[in-house]
C-alpha cells in the first residue's frame, strides 16, 4: 500500500500517521473479530444461560459449569479424549517423521520427492467420512481381514476387537491425520543444510548420532506444528469416534454434539469453553517447549 508517508506536503489530503496501519490491519481484524471472536464471545455468554427443552433464557447461572465439571463422566470423557490424542500423536509423529525423513534424505531428485509427496496426499482426494467408513467392510466381523484370517486358518473365530473398539478409532485417526504430521516435518527437513550432516559425519558421528544430535533437534519446529494440528484435530473430533467405536466410546466433542442434539445449548457452550481452555493450554505448552518461529 502506498500513502503511508505523511510528510508529503501539498497534497489534497493528508492521512494521519496512524491511519494506514489501521487500515492495513482492518481486513484481518474484521474477519477474525466477526468470525472468531464474536462467536466465541456468544458461546461464552450462552454458557451462563438457563434452558429447558425448547428455549434458552438469558440469565447468569453457573450450573452449566458445575454440572459439567462436577460430573465424573466429564472427567472420564476428557481423559478418554486425551488418551486418544496421546496415542494418535505418538503414532502419527513416528510414522510422519520417518515418511518425511525418507522423502527428504533418501529420495535423491527433487522431482521424485514432489511426486512421492503428492502420493501422500492422494487419500485426501476423498472425503473424511468416506475414508473412515471404508474401514468398516475391512475390519468387520465378516470383513476382509476376518474372512482372510478365518479362511487361512490363523484364527477359528473372527477377531472382534478390530471394529467398534478403541483400536478402530485410533487406526482411523492415524489414517486421517498422519499427513498433517508429514507435511510440516518434511518442510523443516528440506531446509536443513546438508553440509551440517556432512560436517557431523566428518567429525566422526555415526548415522544414529547425526539423527539424534542434528536432524531431530532441527526438525523440532516442524514436529511442533504437526503436533498442534494433530492434537487439536483429535481433541475436536466426534465423527470418527462415533463411527469407529459404534457409539460405544465417548469424546468431548461427541458429548457436546449429544447435548446440542437435545437442544441443551448452554450446557454444550460451557463444555466448549472448557475444551477451548484446555486446548489453548496444550498449545501454549507446546509453544513453550519448541520455538516454532524458527520455521517461519
Amino acid at each position: 500500500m502506498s500513502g503511508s508517508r505523511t510528510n508529503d506536503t501539498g497534497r489534497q489530503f493528508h492521512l494521519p500517521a496512524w491511519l494506514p496501519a489501521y487500515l492495513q490491519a482492518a481486513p484481518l481484524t474484521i474477519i477474525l473479530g466477526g468470525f472468531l471472536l464474536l462467536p466465541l464471545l456468544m458461546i461464552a455468554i450462552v454458557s451462563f444461560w438457563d434452558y429447558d427443552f425448547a428455549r434458552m433464557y438469558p440469565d447468569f447461572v453457573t450450573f452449566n459449569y458445575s454440572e459439567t465439571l462436577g460430573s465424573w463422566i466429564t472427567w472420564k470423557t476428557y481423559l478418554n479424549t486425551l488418551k486418544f490424542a496421546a496415542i494418535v500423536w505418538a503414532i502419527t509423529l513416528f510414522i510422519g517423521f520417518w515418511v518425511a525423513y525418507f522423502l527428504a534424505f533418501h529420495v535423491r531428485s527433487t522431482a521424485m520427492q514432489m511426486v512421492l509427496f503428492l502420493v501422500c496426499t492422494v487419500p485426501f482426494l476423498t472425503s473424511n467420512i468416506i475414508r473412515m467408513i471404508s474401514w468398516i467392510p475391512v475390519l468387520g466381523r465378516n470383513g476382509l481381514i476376518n474372512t482372510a484370517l478365518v479362511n487361512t486358518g490363523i484364527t477359528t473365530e473372527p477377531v472382534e476387537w478390530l471394529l467398534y473398539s478403541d483400536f478402530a478409532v485410533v487406526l482411523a485417526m492415524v489414517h486421517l491425520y498422519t499427513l498433517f504430521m508429514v507435511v510440516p516435518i518434511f518442510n523443516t527437513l528440506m531446509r536443513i543444510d546438508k553440509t551440517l550432516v556432512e560436517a557431523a559425519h566428518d567429525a566422526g558421528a555415526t548415522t544414529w548420532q547425526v539423527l539424534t544430535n542434528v536432524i531431530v533437534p532441527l526438525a523440532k519446529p516442524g514436529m511442533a506444528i504437526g503436533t498442534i494440528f494433530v492434537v487439536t484435530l483429535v481433541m475436536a473430533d466426534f465423527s470418527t469416534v462415533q463411527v469407529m467405536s459404534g457409539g460405544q466410546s465417548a469424546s468431548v466433542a461427541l458429548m457436546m454434539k449429544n447435548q446440542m442434539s437435545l437442544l441443551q445449548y448452554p450446557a454444550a457452550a460451557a463444555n466448549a469453553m472448557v475444551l477451548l481452555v484446555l486446548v489453548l493450554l496444550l498449545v501454549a505448552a507446546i509453544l513453550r517447549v519448541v520455538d516454532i518461529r524458527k520455521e517461519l
Partner: protein
Amino acid sequence: MTEKTKTSTGITRRSLLKTGAAAAGVAAGSGAITGFPTIWAQTPITLRQFGTGVSNINAIAEKCKADLGITLEMTATDSDAAAQRAVTQPDSYDIADIEYWILKKVFPTGVIQPMDTKKLKYYDKVVPLFKTGKLTPDSVIAQGTAPHTVGYVESIDAKEFASGETEWFTMMPTIYNADTLGIRPDLVGREITTWADIMDPAFKGKTSILNIPSIGIMDAAMIMEAMGNIKYADKGNMTKEEIDATIDFLIKAKQDGQFRAFWKSFDESVNLMASGEVVIQSMWSPAVAAVRSKGIACKYQPLKEGYRSWGGGLGLASHLSGAQLDAAYEYINWYTSGWVGGYLNRQGYYSACMDTAKDYMSADEWGYWIEGKPAQGDILSPEGKVMEKAGAVRDGGSFEERMGHVACWNSVMDEDRYMVRRWNEFIAS
C-alpha cells in the same frame, strides 16, 4: 415434489389469502363442511406442515394438491428439533405433524389449538386406542405417554389435558406402530421370545440398542422388566431411583461387552443387521423391511411382554383462523378419508381410521398387512417395489394382535433432564 408457492413472503401470501380466499371460505363455511373436495385451486392456499419425517411423504403432498388444490409445504426434522420448533417458532407452521410425547411437552405452551370433533368428518372412525387407550374393550391400557391421555382438553382455550373423551381433540392421530426387537433368524440359532433375550450371554458382542435417550430408555425398561430386575410403577414416567437402576444395569451390560454398537440413525441399524455385526437389536419396522429387501433374513420378532409403541398425529397451529383454519380442517378430513391411510398401511405403519383405509387397499393387501393372513400374491410397497412374496405372513400377525399387545408408549418423563444426563453417562462409560 411439492409445488412451490408463487410467493414466498408471509405478508403477500396472507394478503392474498384475506382477499382471495374469502369467497372460498364462505363457500366452505366454517363448521358446515359438507363434502369435499372443495377445490382451493383458484386461490393459492398453502399449508406449512413440519414434523418428524415418518409421514412427510411427497406422494401425500402431490395427492393433496390434486384432490384439494391445497399446496403442502413439508419440512422434516428430528424429534428434538421438532419439539423446539413447535414451541419457539409457532408462526412458522400451520400444521404440526408430531408424536404424542412431543405434544405432551408442547401443548401446554399454547402453540397448538384443539380441534372441534364436530368438524372432523371421520372422528367416529378413529380407532378406540386413541380415545380410551383400549383397542378392544378388554385390552389393558399401556404405560407411558398413551395418546388418549394427551388427546383431549376440556375447552378450546384449556392448557391442561382432560381425563376423558371431550369434544376438543388435541391432535388427529394419523400414524402409529408397534416396535419390538429385530433378529437375524439365521444367526440367533434359537427361539427368541422375550425382551430379556437381548441380554443372553450367548449373544455377547452381537447386540445393539438405539442411542436416542427417550426411546432407548423404554427399550431398556422393557428388557429390565422382562429379566425380572425391577417392576416399574410406570416405565413411561420413572422415578430417579428407577432411572438410576436402569442406567446402572445398562452400564454394567456395556462394560461386560454385551453390546456391539449403538445406533442413532435408521441406516446404521440396517447396516449393523445386514452385515451380521449384530444378530438381535432394537429396530424400526421399515429397517427390517430394508434388511429383507437385500435378501437377508430378518424378523421383527413379537415378544411375550408386548410392544413399545409410538404414535403421531396432526395438530393445528394456534394462529390458524378463518379460511386457513377451514383449509386445515379440510386437509385433515382428506388425510383421514382413506387414501393416505392405505398408503401408510402399505408401508407397514397403521392408519388411525382403519375403515376408510380399507377401501383403498386390495383384499390381499388388507389381509396381509392388517389381518395377518398369508399373502396371496406379491406384496408391493406404495412405490411399487416387491416387499414380500406370496405366502409371506406379517411378523406379529394382525393389527389386533400387534396393537393389542402394547406394553408402553414412547414417553416424556418428569425427570427427563436427569434421565438424559444419566443416559449420556451410559454412552460415555
